[in-house]
């Protein structure tokens, strides 16, 4: 018998040996803290919604970083946004692509908003993406950022969106106001100094988006 066969045969026995040394589930008792129960309610609630559909519908506002070959893009209009051409917007019929150029800092640190609207709680996070859930209405709010690096792009589907130019602490950005109640609005702005493009996407007012954006700060220092 080879090792693979032995493992398939014996791993369940090892598992049973591990479980035999533990109490039965029904013998264990613990009063979980309100904070834990709140987080688990959010997780369970998240499962109770057809999230895949919702997220795909939210593709209009999905801040999706992708590395693509330039030949794949057929821009109908390209407008340089900065004198240094660190990022450009490419306008298409149904979407806008933000294409980044340049070499970012090797490590960018971690950024988070210091303020989010009441009712929203963080339910998931990686370094560059945070997902918040409003337990009251089940609405999702996302915060994400990507480095402005050669070949990196992010897109915004513009169907059902009204695009407005805004400023986030003096930095120009684009606010996409959704005209479809099932599609979130979105805010994109680029911090050239940090070499990062930021995005919020959610079911909030323009003022709330701008307030959150102003509160974004670096919460650790790059190594």
């Amino acid at each position: 018998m080879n090792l693979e066969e032995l493992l398939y045969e014996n791993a369940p026995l090892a598992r049973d040996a591990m479980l035999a040394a533990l109490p039965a589930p029904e013998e264990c008792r613990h009063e979980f803290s309100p904070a834990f129960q709140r987080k688990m309610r959010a997780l369970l609630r998240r499962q109770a919604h057809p999230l895949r559909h919702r997220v795909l519908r939210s593709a209009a506002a999905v801040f999706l970083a992708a590395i693509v070959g330039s030949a794949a893009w057929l821009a109908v209009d390209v407008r340089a946004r900065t004198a240094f051409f660190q990022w450009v917007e490419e306008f298409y019929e149904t979407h806008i692509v933000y294409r980044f150029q340049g070499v970012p800092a090797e490590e960018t640190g971690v950024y988070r908003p210091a303020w989010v609207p009441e009712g929203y709680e963080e339910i998931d996070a990686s370094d560059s993406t945070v997902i918040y859930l409003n337990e009251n209405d089940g609405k999702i709010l996302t915060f994400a950022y990507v480095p402005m690096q050669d070949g990196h792009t992010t897109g915004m589907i513009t169907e059902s969106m009204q695009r407005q130019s805004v400023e986030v602490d003096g930095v120009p950005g684009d606010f996409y106001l959704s005209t479809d109640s099932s599609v979130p609005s979105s805010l994109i702005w680029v911090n050239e100094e940090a070499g990062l493009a930021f995005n919020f996407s959610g079911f909030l007012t323009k003022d709330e988006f701008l307030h959150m954006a102003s509160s974004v700060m670096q919460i650790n220092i790059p190594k």
Partner: protein
Amino acid sequence: MLIYLQMIEDEADRTKFEQVYLHYRNLMFHVANDILNDWQEAEDAVHQAFIAIAKHIDGVSEAICPRTQGFVVTIVTNKAIDIYRAKKRRAVRPLEEDTVKLCFRTTGSPVADAIARLPERYREVILLKYDAGYTNQEVADLLGKTYESIHSLDRRAKQALREELAKEGIEV
């Protein structure tokens, strides 16, 4: 964002996840608290474990069964040990390594007993792959590691197992 695309989509999987949660949460806390000896950190470990489990609930064929119980215990043990190691790195004085040891009953099978004697990082990969039935990529995702590191751990786990079995006079 991608995490949501992988989340539970159909009613059966949602029900399964809730069953797993309701049936095993106290046991998972017991396991985590045995390792961490800190109820708040143990709750964090249980929460992290459920986030990982939620993403791979479709790999759970039956909510309440020994295989699923082994799966959730393996995951929460991994999360608790991660928290323990992070705490150890922060500690001014080193913590006692032996508090992370888990108990196993002997099985009568030299191979199963050898699996039980493997270091935790090896054993969890073996159990997730060969008992719970997950792929290297899924194990990497469940444990918060890269595919390459799981591939390497799998290879080293098998080598360590061969060496353990050789001590018993079993060559594979």
